[in-house]
C-alpha cells in the first residue's frame, strides 16, 4: 500500500503554486516587444556591411523584423526569395544583384510550404510582393522527412495565416486549415512556455537589436586570439545575450573581441534580408546520415503538395507579369542513392502533377562539400550555380539592376 503525501490540502497547495508560477510566462509574453511594428528597424538605412544584431531576440522577433520590413517597404525589391531557413544566408551578391534589388524574405521564422503560400498571399494583398521575380525555396525532401510540405510549422503570425483562409476551396481544405491553425496557436503557446522567452519578456525591453558593422567585426575576431572566461561562455549558452548585456555581464563590444563569441552575431540581418551565419564556416560539413531521412509523408500527400504549389504559382503570377521559380536545393550526402527515399518519390509525384511549374531541381548536387556550410545550409558557391541557371532560363535577364 502506497501512502501519498497529506491529501487534504495537497491538491490546493500544488495547484495554487503551479498557477502562480505559470503567471510568469504569461506576464512575460504580454511584455514581449513586437519588432514587426517597430518602424525604427529600417533596413533601407543600413550601409554595406552593417546589420541588425539580433542575438538575444527570439526567433519570432527576428522574423518580425523581416515581415515588418516588407509590410512597410516603400521601394519593393525586384527579386525576393521565400521559404524556410535553409537559405537564410543567400545574399544579393550571390545572384549578381545589388542589395536594393533583392530581399531574402526567408524565415518569418521557418515556414513550411502552406505557410509560404499564406505569407505570399499576405504580401500580395498588401501589394508588397517583389515586382519581377519570386524565388520559392522548397526544403529538400530528405530534410525534415517531408512533413514541411503539408503541415504548418507555426511560423507566420496568426493574422498572416488566418488572412489566407479564403484560399480553402473545399470542406476538407477547411478541416485541414482549421487543424493547422490550431497547431499554429499551439506553437504560440509553446513559445510562451519557454524559459528563454520568459527571461526576454521579463527582462529585455526591446533593446536586443542594434546596428553593427559585421564585416569589420568579423575581420576583428578572425585575428582575435582571446577566449572569454569559461563561466561567461557557459552563461551565453544558457541566458539570452540581450539579458547579459542588460545586466552588464556582457558588453556589446565583446561580440567582436572574443573569438569564441562570434556566434553572437549569428542571424544578424543585412539590408538584403540575408542573415549572417559564421561558426560552421570553420569546419568541413558532416554528411547527412541515412537515419535522418525517414519518411513522414503518405499516400495522397503529393496531391496536397501539388495544390499548394499551384496556389503559390497563381498568387504570384495572376494579374501581373511577375515571374516565379521553385527550386529544390541539395543536402550534403556522401553516399547514393538518395533518390530512392520515399519522400523524394512523393515530391517527384507532386511535381509531375504540375508540369507547368518552373522548377529547378538540385537534389543531385549532394556530393559537393564546397557548396555546404553544414549538412543542409548552402554556401555562396551553391547560390552562384543557382543564379547561373536562373539566368539561363531567362528569369534574371529581365531584372533591370542585374549586374552579373
Amino acid at each position, binding site marked *: 500500500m502506497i501512502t501519498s*503525501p497529506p491529501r487534504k490540502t495537497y491538491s490546493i497547495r500544488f495547484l495554487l503554486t503551479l498557477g502562480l508560477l505559470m503567471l510568469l510566462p504569461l506576464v512575460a509574453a504580454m511584455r514581449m516587444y513586437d519588432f514587426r511594428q517597430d518602424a525604427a528597424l529600417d533596413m533601407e538605412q543600413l550601409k554595406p556591411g552593417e546589420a541588425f544584431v539580433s542575438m538575444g531576440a527570439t526567433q519570432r522577433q527576428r522574423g518580425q523584423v523581416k515581415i515588418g520590413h516588407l509590410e512597410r517597404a516603400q521601394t519593393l525589391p525586384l527579386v525576393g526569395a521565400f521559404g524556410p531557413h535553409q537559405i537564410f544566408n543567400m545574399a544579393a551578391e550571390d545572384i549578381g544583384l545589388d542589395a536594393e534589388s533583392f530581399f531574402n524574405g526567408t524565415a518569418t521564422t521557418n515556414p513550411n510550404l502552406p505557410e509560404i503560400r499564406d505569407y505570399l498571399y499576405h504580401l500580395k494583398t498588401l501589394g508588397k510582393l517583389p515586382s519581377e521575380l519570386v524565388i520559392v525555396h522548397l526544403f529538400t525532401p530528405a530534410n525534415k522527412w517531408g512533413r514541411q510540405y503539408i503541415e504548418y510549422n507555426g511560423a507566420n503570425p496568426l493574422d498572416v495565416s488566418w488572412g489566407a483562409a479564403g484560399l480553402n476551396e473545399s470542406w476538407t481544405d477547411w478541416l485541414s486549415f482549421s487543424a493547422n491553425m490550431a497547431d499554429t496557436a499551439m506553437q504560440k503557446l509553446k513559445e510562451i512556455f*519557454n524559459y528563454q522567452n520568459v527571461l526576454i519578456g521579463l527582462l529585455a525591453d526591446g533593446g536586443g537589436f542594434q546596428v553593427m558593422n559585421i564585416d569589420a567585426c568579423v575581420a576583428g575576431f578572425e585575428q582575435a586570439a582571446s577566449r572569454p572566461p569559461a563561466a561567461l561562455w557557459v552563461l551565453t549558452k544558457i541566458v539570452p545575450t540581450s539579458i547579459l548585456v542588460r545586466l552588464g555581464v556582457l558588453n556589446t563590444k565583446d561580440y567582436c573581441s572574443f573569438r569564441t563569441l562570434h556566434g553572437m552575431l549569428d542571424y544578424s540581418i543585412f539590408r538584403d534580408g540575408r542573415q549572417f551565419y559564421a561558426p560552421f564556416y570553420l569546419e568541413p560539413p558532416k554528411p547527412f546520415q541515412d537515419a535522418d531521412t525517414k519518411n513522414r509523408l*503518405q499516400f495522397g500527400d503529393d496531391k496536397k503538395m501539388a495544390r499548394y504549389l499551384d496556389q503559390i504559382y497563381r498568387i504570384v503570377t495572376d494579374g501581373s507579369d511577375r515571374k516565379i521559380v521553385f527550386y529544390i536545393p541539395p543536402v550534403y550526402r556522401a553516399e547514393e542513392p538518395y533518390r530512392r527515399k520515399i519522400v523524394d518519390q512523393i515530391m517527384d509525384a507532386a511535381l509531375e502533377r504540375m508540369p507547368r511549374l518552373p522548377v529547378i531541381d538540385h537534389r543531385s548536387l549532394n556530393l559537393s562539400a564546397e557548396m555546404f556550410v553544414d549538412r543542409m545550409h548552402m554556401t555562396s558557391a551553391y547560390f552562384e550555380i543557382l543564379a547561373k541557371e536562373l539566368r539561363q532560363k531567362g528569369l534574371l535577364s529581365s531584372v533591370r539592376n542585374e549586374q552579373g
Partner: protein
Amino acid sequence: MLFNSIEFLIIFLPVILFVYHTVPVRARLLVLCIGSLYFYGRADWVPLLFLVLSVIWAYGLGILSVRFHRGLVVGLAVTFPLLVLFLFRYLDFALTNIGAGDSTRDVFYFFLSVSLPAGISFYSFQVAAYSIDVYDGVDPPERNFIKLLAFVSFFPQLIAGPIMRYDQMSGQLDHVNAHRSLDVDWAKAFKFVSFGLFGKVVVADVCAGMVTRFDLATGTSSLDAFLSVLSYSFQIYFDFWAYSVIAIGLGEMFGLRLVKNFNEPYRALNMRDFWRRWHLTLSSWLRDYFYIRIGGNRRYYRNILLVFAAVGLWHGAGWNFIIWGLYHGFWVLVYATGKAYWDRLPGWLAIALTFLIVTLGWPLFYLDIGPYSDVIITIFSFSDLSLHFYDFRHILLLGIFSAWVFMARESNWLYNHRLAGILDSPVLHAGMVFVAMMFVNWSKTFIYFRF
C-alpha cells in the same frame, strides 16, 4: 502526442480530466476512448485506423473463440495484430535481408511509406494477450466493445506501457463505469507526474545531450567512449522510468491503477535479476505467452536464447537489436551456469558487474554492429584516458545521477509509506512541473515510443 509537451500538459490533460470527472458515470469509458484515440491519432490517422481495427478484430474473434473453441480462431485473433506489427515494423528489415528489389518494394509501398506507428509493439502485445487469455479461459470474452477499446487505447500506457493484462484492468474499468465516487489519490498522481516529467526533461534529456557530444569519427579516448555509453545508460533508464512513472500518475487521475514497470533495475545483482526489475510487464508477457509455451525450463538454454532473441526483435527491426537480445540471453545463461560462484560475490561487486554488462550492451540500441564494435574496442583499449568531449561538469552530473540510481531507494521517496519530507512537498512538485514545462521545447521524444 507526447506527455512532455505543452499541448498535453496545458490543453489535453486538463480538458479530458474535467470532462471525465463531470460526465455521467456511464459515459466515462466513452470519454476515455475518445480522448485516447485523439491522443494517439493526433499525429497521424493511419496508425489510429490500425489500432482500432486490431481491437475490432480481437473483440469479434474473442467472442467466436469461446463459441467454437478452436485453435484456428485464436490463431486468427493473434495473427492480425502481429501481422500489423510485422507490416509496419519488420517488413522493411525483412525485404532488405532477402535482397528485395524496387519492384517488390513498390508492392508494399503503402506500408513502407507510413512512419512506424508509435507504441505498436505495446498495444499489439496487449491485444494478443487478451485473445490468448480468452481462449485459455482466463478472461471471459468482452462483450462491451467500448470497454475493450478503452483498455487497449488507454492513453497513459498506450505508447510505452506498462503492458497491462485484461484481467488487471477489467474490474477497474467496470468500477469507473459504475460508481460516481472514484478513489483518486490526487497527491500521489501529481507526485508521480511531477517526478516523471522532471526525470524525463531534466535528467534523461540532459543525458541525451551528453551522449550526442561524443563523436567516434573525430577521434576519442577510452574514457570519452565510456562516459558516452554511461550517459546513454542513464538516459534510457530515466527516459523509460519517467514514462512509466508518469503513466502511473496519469492512470491514478482516472481512478485506474497501472502496475509498476521498474523495480530499481540498476540495483540488480545479476542478469536474471535485472530482467525481473527492468520492464517487468514485457518480461512477464514473454514468460507467460512465449517462454512457457515453447517448453519453459525443459530446454532452458535453447528457450532462453529464443526468448531473448525475441526481446531484441521486439525492441527494433535490425540485427543490432537481435544481437542486443542475444547478448542479454548469453549473460543470463552465464549466470545460470555459474550461479554458485556469482552469488558468492559481495553485493556491491555483483551490482557493479551487472550494471557494467547492461551498460555495455545499450549502444546497440543506437549504433549498428560495426560502430558498436568500434566503441567497445575503444573503451577496452585503455589507450587514452584523457577527455576530449567531456569535462568535470559532465562527470559531476553523472555522479549525481549515479547517486540517485544506486543510493536513493524508491521505497523511501516514491513508493513511500512514510512522508519523505521535502520530497513530498506540493510546492516542490509544482516547481518540478513548472521547470519541466519551461524546458519541454528542448525535450526529446521518449525512446520507447519507437518500440
